[in-house]
């Protein structure tokens, strides 16, 4: 794992503490710095203040629901360029299409594979090194 990855920051916007903790553990194990916001309003503020490298946004959040949170993040000059990865228990076509239309770079359903998919997404976003790079480093 290169030193660069230690500096990469992920903001998790997730109201469910258990799910947030699970995500946090997964990402910390990969050498990422993790921030957590329990609702959309706090998430937008933290994103503006700390400008993370990527935002993992659960759609089902209180205060401001996930779609509105995404819209606000994308409209803001400081946060508009940060990739937003949406997570949701809802995986119907309407929800997915709406999320992507709002500017989410990826939409990950909360299922048995969500952790695996998120890590692969972070690799493709170059937040994490690719598997090939890790092998090379070894």
């Amino acid at each position: 794992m290169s030193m660069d990855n230690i500096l990469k920051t992920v903001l998790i916007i997730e109201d469910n503490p258990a799910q947030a903790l699970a995500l946090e553990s997964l990402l910390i194990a990969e050498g990422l710095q993790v921030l957590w916001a329990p609702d959309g309003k706090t998430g937008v503020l933290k994103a503006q203040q700390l400008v993370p490298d990527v935002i993992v946004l659960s759609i089902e959040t209180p205060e401001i629901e996930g779609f509105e949170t995404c819209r606000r993040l994308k409209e803001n000059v400081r946060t508009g360029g940060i990739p937003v990865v949406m997570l949701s228990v809802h995986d119907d076509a309407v929800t997915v299409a709406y999320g992507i239309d709002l500017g989410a770079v990826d939409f990950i359903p909360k299922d048995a594979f969500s952790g695996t998919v998120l890590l692969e997404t972070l690799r493709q976003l170059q937040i994490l090194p690719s598997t090939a790079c890790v092998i090379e480093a070894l």
Partner: protein
Amino acid sequence: MQRRRGADSGAPFVEPMNATQTIVIRTEFDVFIARQHVRELARAAGLDLTNQACIALATSSLARALRLGEVYQGQVSIDCLHTRGNRGIRVICTALEGAKVHLSSRAFSHTRWLVDELSVERTPSSDVQATAVKWAVQRHVQTREFKPVESASQLEMQNDTNGHMPR
């Protein structure tokens, strides 16, 4: 064509891009496995993250519209398409003897938003087959609206794009 039992097959796998993967769907969990395989193949085919998400989630949307793993058993077949200057993923969801599947279901037309091509047909053996294609580079034109079809000939008319879709 290689057949795999979804829930029994263990960890996700990726096979060479010219192989067709077929996942048998018996339970809802098999749909999740199929969706994961679609995502992995889409990545291998060079689709970007958003397109990977679209075709993967279109798969589960189609499976749900066909009530796979819930009412009907069936299968999801995935293969990579190669054309001049483009690559894509084709997913075929089949509900075996899906007599009560409504081809005009709104779920099918909603799924159309996620993919570049979509067709639904009822085969002579009463199976219902939904075929979705997502390209790495979105193709020109494709202005026709999604319409459910009841026969293979109608399906061919709908799919008569550039004639590059290998069967």
